[in-house]
């Protein structure tokens, strides 16, 4: 597809030399490369001296365990579970601290509004809606992200992540995908948009697309609060384990479910609309290196703080304002929010949710982390997040609104499987350059979420389990 004049003198020489390029059995190109390496080999022998020949360091032996048949997989699961546990448990205290500071400031804001005698609706929109949601989202999102991303970067700098790709490549090959997809999935745990961008490490466009389309099945940090909250309150009461350990266990199980869906959908895609031959894997396993923990945390903290705050300001704050407005504007004697929830209720009930939950997910399109605030604000029909620092209060609200085990379970499933957030969809569009594939990235999870929840809900109803 040359845009140049075919009579271009340079191109003419190029086509004339075709025979030279392909002569003598091995293409000249190979000879050129061989010559370069012959030179570097000799040069290196001259200038590099190994003082202790044949001494293998303990680092060389790490791989014997990491990729072994016996320890390889369990080690991966253990590390994954540990990262989750650290993210969840480690975030508790900072979240509570940030929440108390920001919520305390809300009282200051309220005081100012009273001072200038601002109308109640303005206070409602700006403080109760916008600011409150912004505060909640920052308190809930910043600590886990500030822990997860540095941990992930540490594993990357350590050199461990290529070993994960190495161990799992076989499974991905069976789904006609690339082993490096697991790295995009790992990134997706932090943020699905980041996971989509990370798919650049996959060379084959077909396999890259599979990684992009399925990244959503890995729950991102934005969905953790939803999953943790529900898991904690509905499971903790029945077992005697510590809440954070249980929550971590629940999350790990859901994640594994998401991984299972990833494989299933990848396999299906490569058998249907993304058919093609598996491409080759050429993966370098770098030596293990101790990373500079301080530098990694410092850089990650700054990057993540900026990201979370920006999203909170751009997405969460307006969403909070909108929700407050919808909850406090009435059609007849029903708030707009209750009205919409009522319209959605039949569909929602069919899949084991209720109208408010479905609406919260829909309104949560801009960012997954606002689903819970929106849900709570709509349940509490004053459209305001009341004080509840304990999840116990949350449970009361949910139970009071008709939540059963099915609601909890299906909400978690829906949270895991549903459409990607707007940032992720935008990233998909930027990376693929295609409206068609971005739409596929939206429709595939949506259809799966509805179908799976429908089947489970109907089965539960039929069997009289609810």
């Amino acid at each position, binding site marked *: 597809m040359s845009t140049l004049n075919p009579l271009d003198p340079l191109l003419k020489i190029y086509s004339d030399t075709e025979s*030279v390029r392909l002569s003598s059995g091995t293409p000249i190109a190979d000879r050129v490369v061989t010559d370069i390496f012959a030179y570097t080999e000799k040069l290196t022998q001259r200038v590099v*001296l190994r*003082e202790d020949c044949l001494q293998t360091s303990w680092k060389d032996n790490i791989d014997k365990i990491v990729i072994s048949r016996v320890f390889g997989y369990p080690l991966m699961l253990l590390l994954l579970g540990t990262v989750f546990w650290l993210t969840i448990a480690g975030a508790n205290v900072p979240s509570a601290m940030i929440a108390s500071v920001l919520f305390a400031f809300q009282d200051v804001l309220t005081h100012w509004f009273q001072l200038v005698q601002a109308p109640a609706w303005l206070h409602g929109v700006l403080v109760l809606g916008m600011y409150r949601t912004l505060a909640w989202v920052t308190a809930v999102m910043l600590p886990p992200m500030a822990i997860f991303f540095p941990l992930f970067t540490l594993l990357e700098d350590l050199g461990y992540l290529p070993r994960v790709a190495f161990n799992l490549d076989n499974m991905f090959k069976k789904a006609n995908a690339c082993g490096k997809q697991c790295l995009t999935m790992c990134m997706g745990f932090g943020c699905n948009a980041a996971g989509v961008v990370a798919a650049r490490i996959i060379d084959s466009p077909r396999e890259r697309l599979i990684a992009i389309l399925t990244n959503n099945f890995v729950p991102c940090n934005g969905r953790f609060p939803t999953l943790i909250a529900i898991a904690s309150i509905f499971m903790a009461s029945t077992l005697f384990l510590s809440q954070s350990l249980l929550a971590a266990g629940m999350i790990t199980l859901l994640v594994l479910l998401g991984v299972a869906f990833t494989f299933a959908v990848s396999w299906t895609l490569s058998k249907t609309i993304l058919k093609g031959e598996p491409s080759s894997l050429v993966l370098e396993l770098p030596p293990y290196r101790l990373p500079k923990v301080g530098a990694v945390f410092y850089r990650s903290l700054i990057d993540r703080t900026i990201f979370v705050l920006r999203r909170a300001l751009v997405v969460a704050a307006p969403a909070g304002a909108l929700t407050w407005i919808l909850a406090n504007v009435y059609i007849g004697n029903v708030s707009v929010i209750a009205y919409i929830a009522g319209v959605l209720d039949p569909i929602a009930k069919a899949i084991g949710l209720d109208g408010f939950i479905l609406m919260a997910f829909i309104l949560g399109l801009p960012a997954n982390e606002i689903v819970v605030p929106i849900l709570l604000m709509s349940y509490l029909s004053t459209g305001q997040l009341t004080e509840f620092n304990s999840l116990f209060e949350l449970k009361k609200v949910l139970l009071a609104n008709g939540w059963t085990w099915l609601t909890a379970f299906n909400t978690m499933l829906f949270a895991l499987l549903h459409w990607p957030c707007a940032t992720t969809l935008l990233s998909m569009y930027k990376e693929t350059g295609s409206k068609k594939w971005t739409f596929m990235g939206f429709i595939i999870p949506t259809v799966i979420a509805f179908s799976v929840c429908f089947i489970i809900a109907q089965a539960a109803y039929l069997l009289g389990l609810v």
Partner: protein
Amino acid sequence: MKLKLGDHSNAPNDHSRVMREQFGIRTTGEQYVIALAGNPNVGKSTVFNALTGLHQHTGNWPGKTVDNAQGHYSYRNKSFLLVDLPGTYSLLAHSVEEEIARDFICFGQPDATIVVLDATSLERNLNLALQVMEISSKVIICVNLIDEARKKKLSINFGELEKELGVPIVPTAARNGEGLSDLQKAVYSMVVEKKKTWPKQIPYSEEVEQAISALLPKVEALSLASLVNPKWLALRLLDSDVSFIETISRYAATQPQKTVASQRQGGEFIL
């Protein structure tokens, strides 16, 4: 005296700026543009981060979905813009990353290129350094991870290496900050003080040399020959994809015609 591709410091300033803007590089005032190349996993980002600190931002290369990180640092009152090229094993292969690295080094006219190597893996890493040296004489080789090399009880004769390769060799352990000021000094020397280099030319086998000699007369007859090292061009005609040849032709078409005499720039090439 033939000029190498990329050595256009005598070219008008605004022309360089235009070229760079095609790559999404925007310089402020008298900023020197330094390209940072290297294999994946050699600690290139560590070098980049160590030199630029928080004065960096990441975007995309124009029209491509590949990360482009740029950052700047100051040394002796001069400002240097560091462009972190995608990690590549070679400039000869055909992935988007390798194309970007190659196109920028060849046509982006950086004031200098730092090639970062892994001290524990020199044999493989030198491949890229030698290829860059074929394109430009303004190359600095940064041998990173020397702390890892020490742990592996490897000792490298940097003096001998520098003598053989003819370009500055700077050992670093960017993680610990070792060698970074030497690197900045070497960059300063090269772009501000215009210190000369004599990059080693790759000794090819007879088969290749013969093919080059056969092509050379045809290549030298081209008008393109005044802009580009004919030997390099002959080699690329022998081993590249047609798309790269087209890229070269397109680049040549945007350059103003020059006489050979006005293109002298330090550095002799041992042909």
